């Protein structure tokens, strides 16, 4: 097959992956996640476990050591035997705490300690870098197979250019689809779907090759078994060593949970724990299928290819040698898929850990005060930190590959990564099963394991230091694994027993071990004025839209309308967990405390929380639901009652206010008209007084117009003339009409004109009236210097439109936000400037008539209003009848 065709095919395949990822992200953003959430997609995404190490290296491994290669897949199979009670529970607890990585999980369990997370991130980075390098190497090696005709002298580091291009392309893919948003639950639909597709390609390629080898090159399974027996006869290396067998099964079982990329797909990307019911058997079946033909391919490669051919490349050279160019190309794509999917997921996982546990805490420490500053910058910082981390991981992987010149055997680097991450497992399992486990134990265990791994496994693997002197009957790798894991576990247990956990840690321990949701602690019963700073903070992390949606749904869950829920412990808990999903548990905890003023946790608080959690656990779901429902109803009733009381007071006040508003201009009119009757007035006075009478009667008329307008709108009898309109035109007209208000003030406009070209079907004049009113209000009341008016238009999901108009002034205090849409709400306002305070009340009624709404948006750094339009105004109930 010509090299150019290979490159072209490869590029087409890459384009397909970009397309699939893009389509899946798009589908997810439109809420169509049903097929994306299918257990099959989840199961296939788990196959990132089978990296290029499996795809190329397994055959090489089997050539050298026979059946021992299977340990790498048997370990995960045994772990998945316990999927129902083990992994499901891990996923449930991790989802409950919105865990973003394995480092985050352990840090959250041990008292939200960021230093522990930073240590685990360090291990992950050290362990994964050579592994990423290995994938790059395998891709460039496989290119070399096609580029050179010779089967034997393929340079290990020949394709440095290829590796660079691959690394760059993968970095681009990962940045585009891995850092799209700071989703609170850290799921990447595009990446996962592309990986699921790659998993299918990988499996198909390998099975096709296996079938070709067994039925095409050999003469069926019986012949194959004979050949295996023949091959084994000459190989002492094939005899299984029980110690290695056991150690490798343990380590690979640990790896399936602890490797950053596996934790990412197994736990973080899982929507819920139920899909493990399918993945529990389907993933072992995938591994089984990937392993079935490894030994036949190895044996056949040995028998048919020259003795000095690289066994790690048998899967490519076998079909190429037999003239099966298409099969070779398919296998090449399979290997390419294996390498790229591993690198992408690994990089995402590492980048999340690096940004959440290294860069963001560092930034917050440098900034000292996390609550001050530009509202947008944290979100931007986190995303950029992730992009930077992705580039860094990829670059370090490539540099490592260039610097070492490639390693001779693919197998060793994979095992180095496995054994490194396995050091995290005792702390993790201990943390999930044993309430007594604590942070000192975790530090001691992870630290001990890390040191031993560095000395016994990692440094020897890169040629620093040497294997310890051991009797020949003891296998050095098995020895190193046993020693490091045993001392790790021992240190973890001993230090846990003698250490003393702090209260936060005990609380988290309780939550993790009994898989219940303990509620956040502290003196939290505060007023709504504390909620708004929290909203401002959430907005900095998630962006305005997501933050508002979350706060609105939390308020709704409490039975309240609007955007500001009560500051209940439950709300704070949920907020902290969601924030943890974006920036890690430790940082989220610190940030909430900095705003909400987290109090020190006392032992009696702890006791109270513990008993509450225990009780909550015992309570049946039914009671829980009934209670929540009751509480919601009660809140709704209370709100309704408050409203009714306020309404009847308002009714009285309304009449008095109308009277006041009418009498005031009438007073001037009457007084001056009497004065005009007196004969001895100068002409100048006469003119002036006549003008006052004219102005005041105009004011009277306007007031009556407004009142009439309002009553028509309130009764729903308003005549609407519904036409198509362009929001951009309406906004332009509103801006020019409103500039008559306070014309001396020059506002800087912050708009996105292109996004404003949104067509709507509505009563354009009425909508214009609302826009003018809101913009004029901003011109009147915005007290910032220089004043800025920002306008944002978006299409809503259901085909309507949404206009946000915000200024940068001091906004409206929380207590008054509920009142501004009431009639005459500006009555005691010094700046009411001749208006009666009916403007926003009319706006509210207009929007109700148009089938939309206008609301005040709290926490936007100024007064902000959101105008929501439906796709088209509702047809009044009697309109249809009249037409009929």
């Amino acid at each position: 097959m010509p090299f150019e065709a290979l490159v072209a095919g490869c590029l087409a395949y890459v384009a397909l992956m970009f397309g699939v990822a893009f389509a899946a992200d798009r589908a997810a953003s439109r809420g169509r996640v049903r097929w994306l959430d299918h257990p099959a997609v989840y199961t296939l995404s788990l196959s990132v476990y089978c990296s290029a190490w499996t795809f190329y290296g397994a055959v090489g491994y089997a050539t050298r050591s026979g059946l021992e290669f299977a340990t790498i897949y048997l370990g995960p199979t045994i772990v998945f035997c316990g999927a129902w009670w083990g992994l499901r529970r891990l996923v449930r607890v991790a989802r409950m705490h919105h865990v973003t990585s394995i480092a985050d999980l352990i840090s959250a369990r041990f008292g939200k300690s960021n230093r522990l997370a930073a240590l685990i991130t360090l291990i992950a980075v050290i362990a994964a870098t050579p592994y990423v390098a290995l994938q790059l190497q395998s891709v460039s090696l496989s290119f070399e197979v096609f580029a050179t005709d010779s089967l034997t002298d393929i340079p290990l580091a020949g394709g440095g250019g290829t590796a660079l291009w691959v690394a760059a392309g993968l970095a681009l893919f990962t940045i585009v689809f891995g850092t799209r948003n700071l989703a609170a639950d850290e799921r990447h639909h595009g990446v996962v779907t592309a990986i699921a597709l790659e998993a299918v390609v990988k499996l198909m390629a390998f099975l096709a090759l296996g079938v070709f080898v067994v039925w095409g090159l050999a003469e069926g399974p019986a012949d194959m078994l004979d050949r295996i027996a023949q091959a084994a006869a000459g190989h002492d290396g094939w005899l299984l060593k029980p110690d290695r067998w056991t150690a490798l099964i343990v380590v690979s079982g640990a790896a399936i949970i602890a490797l950053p990329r596996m934790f990412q797909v197994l736990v973080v990307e899982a929507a819920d724990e139920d899909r493990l019911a399918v993945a529990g058997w389907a993933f072992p079946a995938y591994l089984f299928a990937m392993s079935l033909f490894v030994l036949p391919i190895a044996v056949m490669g040995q028998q048919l290819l020259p003795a000095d051919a690289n066994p790690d490349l048998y899967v490519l050279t076998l079909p190429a040698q037999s003239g099966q160019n298409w099969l070779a190309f398919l296998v090449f794509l399979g290997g390419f898929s294996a390498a790229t999917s591993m690198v992408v997921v690994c990089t995402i996982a590492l980048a999340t850990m690096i940004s959440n546990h290294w860069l963001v805490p560092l930034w917050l420490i440098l900034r000292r005060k996390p609550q001050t500053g530009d509202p947008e910058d944290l979100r931007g910082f986190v995303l950029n930190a992730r992009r930077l981390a992705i580039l860094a991981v990829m670059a370090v992987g490539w540099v490592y590959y260039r610097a070492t010149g490639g390693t001779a055997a693919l197998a060793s680097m994979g095992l180095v990564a496995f054994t490194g991450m396995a050091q995290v497992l005792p702390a993790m399992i201990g943390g999930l099963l044993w309430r007594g486990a604590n942070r000192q134990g975790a530090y001691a265990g992870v630290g001990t394991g890390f040191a031993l791994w560095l000395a016994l496994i990692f440094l020897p693997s890169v040629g620093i230091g040497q294997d310890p002197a051991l009797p020949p009957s003891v296998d050095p790798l098995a020895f190193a694994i046993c020693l490091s894991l045993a001392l790790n576990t021992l240190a973890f247990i001993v230090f846990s027993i003698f250490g003393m956990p702090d209260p936060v840690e005990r609380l988290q321990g309780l939550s993790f071990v009994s898989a219940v949701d303990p509620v956040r602690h502290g003196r939290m019963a505060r007023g709504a004025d504390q909620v708004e700073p929290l909203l401002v903070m959430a907005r900095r992390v998630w962006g305005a839209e997501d933050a508002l949606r979350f706060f609105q749904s939390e308020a709704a869950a409490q039975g309240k309308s609007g955007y500001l829920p009560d500051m209940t412990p439950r709300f704070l808990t949920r907020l902290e967990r969601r924030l943890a999903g974006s920036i890690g548990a430790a940082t989220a905890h610190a940030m909430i405390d900095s705003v909400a003023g987290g109090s020190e946790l006392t032992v009696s608080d702890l006791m109270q929380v513990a008993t509450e959690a225990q009780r909550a656990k015992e309570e049946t779901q039914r009671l829980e639901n009934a209670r929540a429902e009751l509480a919601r109803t009660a809140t709704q009733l209370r709100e309704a009652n408050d409203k009714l009381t306020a309404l009847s007071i308002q009714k009285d006040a309304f009449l008095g206010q109308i009277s006041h508003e009418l009498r005031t201009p009438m007073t001037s009119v009457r007084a001056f008209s009497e004065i005009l009757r007196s004969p001895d007035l100068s002409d100048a006075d006469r003119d002036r007084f006549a003008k006052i009478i004219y102005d005041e009667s105009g004011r009277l008329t306007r007031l009556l117009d407004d009142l009439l307008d309002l009553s028509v709108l309130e009764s729903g009898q308003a005549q609407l003339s519904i036409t198509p309109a362009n929001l951009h035109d309406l906004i332009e007209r509103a801006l020019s009409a409103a500039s008559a208000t306070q014309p001396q003030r020059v506002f800087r406009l912050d708009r996105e004109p292109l996004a404003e070209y949104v067509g709507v079907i509505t009563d354009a004049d009425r909508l214009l009236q609302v826009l003018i009113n809101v913009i004029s209000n901003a011109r009147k009341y915005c007290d910032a210097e220089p004043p800025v008016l920002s306008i944002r238009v978006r299409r809503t999901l259901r085909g309507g439109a949404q206009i946000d108009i915000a200024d940068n002034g001091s906004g409206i205090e929380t207590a008054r936000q509920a009142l501004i849409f009431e009639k005459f709400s500006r009555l005691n306002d010094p700046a009411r400037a001749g208006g009666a305070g009916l403007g926003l009340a009319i706006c509210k009624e207009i929007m109700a008539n148009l089938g939309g709404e206008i609301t005040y948006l709290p926490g936007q750094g100024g007064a902000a209003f959101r105008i929501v339009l439906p796709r088209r105004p509702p047809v009044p109930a009697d309109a249809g009848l009249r037409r009929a």
Partner: protein
Amino acid sequence: MLDILMIEDEPNIAEAVRFILSREGWQVALHADGAGGIEAIRGAKPRLVILDVMLPHRSGTEILAELRGDQDPSLAATPVLMLTARGQASLSLPQADAVLAKPFANDDLRAMVRRMLN
């Protein structure tokens, strides 16, 4: 000494009252906000205060109550004419010496002020 201090936020009404009363020969000063109203009264020590009920920042009734509680007994006894736009319902303002509902006849205003100043 100042005859009349008027506290009224509606500029046109204030202008009308001032025009009517100064043509009668009285000296009229104006303060246009509830805030600072009591300080204006203390500073000017007028013979009569005309006070609007509904003022921005601080209502006329509050100003009246503070005036009546002032330590200086002569200041506390200053006669006060309240103007109200709330209609007949709110004419019962016991601390005021007289109450006039808006809109008023100019003659009523003149007569009432004359009676209170003499």
